[in-house]
């Protein structure tokens, strides 16, 4: 025998349930995307900061030419000699010129890149104590091989970090705004529901139903509308995220190369990040429940 889900049907608001469902579903969709965007910006910022912090890139033009000091020593060898005696350096990573050409090929084309006389790049990684006196190192390098440039990444990392942090904060502000709009819509749905069901509520009161009982009916009504909406909203948002992520991965290989561009990594999320994303629809559901109950209780208090 079909008894139905009576608690959800006591208040007759089928039309409002559809509207509320669409509204909450759309809000959850946007909130999940915004939260992923915020976390993505944070992850990129973290990755770049940790990857490039304490790194100095040295460019040695004409690396194979002899030094001005005479002898058979090349300019590159002179620079490396200076680096060997500089304290605080943890790692010296000589980047092969072929790698540099590979990086430039997508932009300049194979022919032009092959003719270019590229400087040799050296990545220096410093110990935790960091770079104490970059100016002195620059002076010594220029003395050994004039024209050598030592580029410190800190200034642009700071600017990029500020930008990604702003994106991160913006994402969470969007989540907050969307949540507020969703909760306001729940409040209005409940208030209009109480108003439209005034006769039924009066009857329930006469049959001995307390405000908490009637408020539970509205809460159940909102739950029946918002729970599927939250699930579908979150599912569609997740599908969208993975669709975008798959596009990003497809675009990463350069000219058939298996190398991927790590500058804009695809979903660099760990389990904690996914946990935060999952909290968005769950939080939506819980908040709408609490809001519906409070709004109904307050509205019912006004009915004598």
């Amino acid at each position, binding site marked *: 025998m079909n008894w139905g889900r*009576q608690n959800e049907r006591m208040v*007759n608001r089928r039309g409002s349930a559809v509207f509320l469902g669409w509204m909450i579903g759309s809000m959850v969709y946007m909130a999940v995307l915004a939260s992923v965007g915020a976390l993505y910006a944070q992850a990129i910022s973290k990755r770049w900061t940790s990857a490039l912090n304490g790194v100095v890139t040295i460019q040695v033009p004409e690396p194979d030419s002899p030094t001005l000091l005479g002898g058979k020593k090349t300019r590159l060898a002179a620079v490396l000699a200076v680096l060997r005696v500089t304290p605080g350096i943890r790692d010296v990573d000589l980047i092969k010129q072929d790698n540099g050409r590979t990086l430039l090929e997508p932009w300049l084309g194979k022919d032009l890149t092959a003719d270019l006389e590229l400087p040799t790049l050296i990545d220096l990684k410093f110990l935790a104590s960091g770079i104490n006196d970059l100016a002195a190192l620059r002076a010594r390098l220029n003395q050994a091989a004039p024209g050598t440039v030592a580029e410190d990444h800190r200034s642009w990392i700071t600017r990029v970090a500020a930008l990604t942090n702003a994106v991160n904060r913006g994402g969470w502000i969007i989540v907050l705004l969307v949540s507020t709009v969703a909760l306001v819509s729940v409040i209005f749905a409940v208030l209009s529901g109480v108003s439209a069901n005034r006769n039924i509520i009066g009857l*329930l*009161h006469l049959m*001995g*139903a307390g405000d908490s009982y009637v408020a539970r009916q509205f809460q159940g009504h909102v739950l029946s509308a918002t729970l599927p909406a939250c699930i579908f909203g979150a599912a569609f948002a997740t599908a969208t995220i993975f669709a975008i992520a798959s596009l990003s991965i497809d675009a990463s290989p350069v000219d058939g190369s298996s190398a991927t561009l790590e500058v804009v990594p695809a979903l660099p999320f760990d389990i904690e990040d996914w946990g935060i994303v999952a909290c968005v629809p769950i939080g939506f559901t819980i908040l709408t429940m609490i809001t519906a109950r409070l709004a109904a209780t307050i509205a019912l208090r006004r009915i004598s």
Partner: protein
Amino acid sequence: MTQLNVERPVLVLRFEDVEMRYTIGPPVLHGVHFELDPNSFHFMTGKSGAGKSSLLRMIYLALLPSRGRVVLFGRDTRTLSRDEISRVRRRIGIVFQDFRLIEHLNVRENVALPLRIAGTRESVIRRHVPELLDWVGLAEHLNALPRTLSGGQQQRVAIARAVIAQPTLLLADEPTGNVDDRIAHRLLYLFEELHRAGTTVIVATHNDALVSRFPHARLHLEEGHLKRLEGSRKPNARTRQSLNQNDTQ
């Protein structure tokens, strides 16, 4: 001399010099004074506008007296909190004159409402509701919506809803107003069954012919005054037989 200390059962209802008026104008009820013992059966009679509905509304706490005191189940109705009013109302079954069925709920769900409000277990609800609906002759209409039923059938749904939770006090406002004599007698017989099971019953009606066929006392309202008239007739064998025949139809 030995003094017997016999504890009197708490009165179900006591009106103490009650006056009721709506904003301006003369009082609808005045000087109303009566009390109901537990497990009593009373008709409430009087012409339209005599104040029957107002008096019933005071009993089910939809109205408070303008003057005087209404004591329900031993509690002054003026002193009850909102939650206490809900608890008191759960002990009252009401048959409204206009039925007040919830249109979007089917018969079974309408009748189950008082049990759900009382927090009765679902298994009990699923057993008792069809039983009672079968007893009032609506076994074939469990899943019907109220609007698909006749006036008499809707009235029986309203009565089933009022009695399903076995209330201490049953109030019926013109419960026979929309049914023919046969159904009217059958409904009165149902109220008598409840009365025999321990429920205090007040049936408001202006059907004097019906009232005269039952032996119960009358609370008669006339121009806002209430008179208590004792019932004089016991139902004779023919009446009883007629009721039983009606019930089997």
